[in-house]
């Protein structure tokens, strides 16, 4: 297993290096640049040229790339051309918000999706199966931004049950330890902050969970249906094993393997794919920041954020691979 971990981490080096070259070139191929974005509509052509020189964008492309690479190797991610603050500071300030929201969404998706998929499969053709299948289809079809808007309009604006956005109510003084508000409240004993953070997580969590929930429900259903046809399940049932044992040890344990792969991939994509949800709920995570960085052609933020997300994505999937062996002893990772 250790060899696998080391090998995967070593594979990361050329992956990230290649990605950095592609990102560097792609971003510079986009029309416009950070100078215009930062100066806005009031600037003249001369202002823009001066700004480009100040930002080092008048240097040859290869020169710019090697400066970037040199800085990266010394863990210097530079400064956001849009906000003028260090990229690493911007990242660490926003990443916990995105993780908190992503984990909430994936928890909702797993806690609801796996049992729902299982029940749909066990009662194939019944009302629960029809409901789960069509419900998940709707979940995949409804655009997240529309669902988010409707959820806010009904439960925040209409009923007033939940806030319309942000991570904490204005005026809640939460001491920041880890940046995860739900956790910080517990660590510091400020339980009202934890409660408030959870209250703020409900609507964006549900909106963001819609697609993963649909995917997990459908995958669980399909996988359970397949496993239920297996001989070993029939054998276990005919041996007179208790239903609960058959379901947990034989059906779910085997059926969950592809679902776990999906959960790994979905978790990774939630980290980078929460752009719309974060924007609509003023969430202050990396998703909405990346969107603003694209508008502002913020090269340092875009390059470094995407590289870090790629790194996290690979690590999550490595963890998923390692989790295989725990769930199914027959699987040995190589």
């Amino acid at each position: 297993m250790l060899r696998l971990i080391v090998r995967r981490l070593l594979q990361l080096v050329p992956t990230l290096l290649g990605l950095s070259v592609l990102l560097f070139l792609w971003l510079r191929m986009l029309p416009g640049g950070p100078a215009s974005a930062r100066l806005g509509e009031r600037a003249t052509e001369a202002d823009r040229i001066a700004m480009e020189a100040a930002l080092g964008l008048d240097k040859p492309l290869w020169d710019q790339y090697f400066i970037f690479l040199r800085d990266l190797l010394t863990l210097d991610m530079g400064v956001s051309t849009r906000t003028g603050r260090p990229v690493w500071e911007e990242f660490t300030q926003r990443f916990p918000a995105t993780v908190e929201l992503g984990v909430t969404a994936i928890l909702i998706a797993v806690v609801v999706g796996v049992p729902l998929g299982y029940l749909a499969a066990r009662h194939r053709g019944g009302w629960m199966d029809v409901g789960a299948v069509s419900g998940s289809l709707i979940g995949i079809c409804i655009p997240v931004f529309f669902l988010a808007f409707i959820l806010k309009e009904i439960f925040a604006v209409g009923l007033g049950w939940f806030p319309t956005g942000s991570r904490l109510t204005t005026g809640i003084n939460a001491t920041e330890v880890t940046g995860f508000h739900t956790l910080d409240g517990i660590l510091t004993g400020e339980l009202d902050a934890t409660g408030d953070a959870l209250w703020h997580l409900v609507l964006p969590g549900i909106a963001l969970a819609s697609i993963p929930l649909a995917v997990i429900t459908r995958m669980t259903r399909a996988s359970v249906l397949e496993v239920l046809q297996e001989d070993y399940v029939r054998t276990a049932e005919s041996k007179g094993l208790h239903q609960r044992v058959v379901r947990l040890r034989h059906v779910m344990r085997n059926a969950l393997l592809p679902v776990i792969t999906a959960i790994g991939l979905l978790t990774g994509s939630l980290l980078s794919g929460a752009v719309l949800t974060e924007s609509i709920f003023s969430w202050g995570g990396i998703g909405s920041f990346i969107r603003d960085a694209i508008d502002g052609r913020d090269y340092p933020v875009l390059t470094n954020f995407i590289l870090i997300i790629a790194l996290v994505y690979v690590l999550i999937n490595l963890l998923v691979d390692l989790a295989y062996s725990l769930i199914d002893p027959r699987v040995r990772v190589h």
Partner: protein
Amino acid sequence: MHIARSKVAVIAAAVSLGLVATACSSDRDSNGSDGGGSTERFIFGAAGDPGSLDPSLESDGETFRVSRQVLETLLDHESGGTELIGGLAETWDSNDEGTEWTFNLRDGVTFHDGEELTAQVVCDNFDRWYNWTGTYQSTALSYYWQAEFGGFAENESEDTPPPNYVGCEATEDLTAVINLEEPSSVFPGAFSLAAFSIHSPKSLERYAEDEASGEGDNISRPDYSQDPEAIAGTGPFQLSNWNKGNGEVTVTRFDDYWGETAGFEEIVFRTISDEGARRQALEAGEIHGYDLVAPSDVDALESAGFEVPVRGVFNIFYLAFTQERNEALQDIDVRRAVAHALDRQGLVDTQLPEGGVVATQFVPDTIAGYSDDVTLYEYDEDAARELLDEAGHADLTVDFCYPTEVTRPYMPAPADMFELMKADLEAVGVTVNPRPMKWTPDYLDTTRDGGCDLYLLGWTGDFNDAYNFLGTWFDGYSKEWGFRNDEIFEALAASSVEPDVEAREAMYEEINELVMDFLPGVPISSSPPSIVFADSVNPPTVSPLTQEKFSEGSFK
């Protein structure tokens, strides 16, 4: 049996969630007070985070909205108007040449950190900007200084303009004299710009310890500019917190303020970048106001009981021609034809909020130097067709650029406005090639590089001087307009150094007439950007310059 248990569990969870949510939501009242406190907190929905807390380094409206509550300038604008009045300076005067400006400061003004306002403090502030070195000399950090005062004591780049600032002398305790190299039309208006707010001497000491730094694509803002404790001004509010994670800047009432004490105990500027999210937050009672309301939301908000006070107009929205890019546009008859083809009144009636008016020239009618004698171009399709025929361009084709995904104070719905203009042009036989682009950087870059035949842009004035509008566009050749008209360029150059205000205003009137005869573009409209407040609030007087003083507001 098990299914039934699951169903019970799901229902129980949903009910619990509902109860928790109801309990949580009922903890909050509508006056912005949290459950445990009694602070009367006014929460304003901002469209973006401030760039920093030091307005000297910035050029964006969201930074200035916060800084204007905290820091003050030598001169100010009358509440709700554009006339200059005393700010930290009670009175001011200049010599006949307009090169020596004397400011008599208010007595008894204290900074938030307890320091006294003196003439020496004012001079120290101006000298600080003048002596900026290194990265501070980048337009990224000193845009307004360079735009109004030119360069620095020691320019480090040949692109930096020569300085117009000579020095500042504290001739008496409360009398500061600022000397300029030559007169300029930007004065005295520039002394009211938020970028030239006066900071406490202790703050200046702290600033000197931090340096903006950077190389390559690393222009960083100095640390002090991110620290609310480092910045002290004389305004009715003092900075108390900047929660970047939550996107909130908090300012609290300054009880020793020299003027009238603020009506709100605390203001929180909460960033909600999505326009729809700002409206929902207002409707849900989470914020008490926000700016740049979409015109389509105004009626609905008013019907729902929110207050949408009408601002005076202080902007110009225009259709620009890039004459170099399309030879036909170099013909004055073609430009006139386009002007006659546009139903500007129809556009104002359907697209702009209450208070919007058709513009007859490139300055709003509220500004000194506005002329009543400019050539008018009435909506007249027949005249447009005739002019195109006479010019031999009955088959005129134009590339018409417009921005997407953006709302500007002068241009609330660019795509809809473009569609109306396109229909008007097509009605007189012009073929329009639509070129929609993302606002920044695509659109701004393309228009600035002269990449469109026609495009839409505008300007909101900084202060009441026509040069702030006319000089921005027509003081010399630029690719975005693509024309050379020495008569206009020279007239503007002469007006910019005319120290006599009345003579200067007369010159502006003539320039407006010249410009509208030459017709480099078609001024479309002036319109007030809408701002909205909750009905629980007595709103501050709204400003055509979008410089509301929130200290004037209070809860009912």
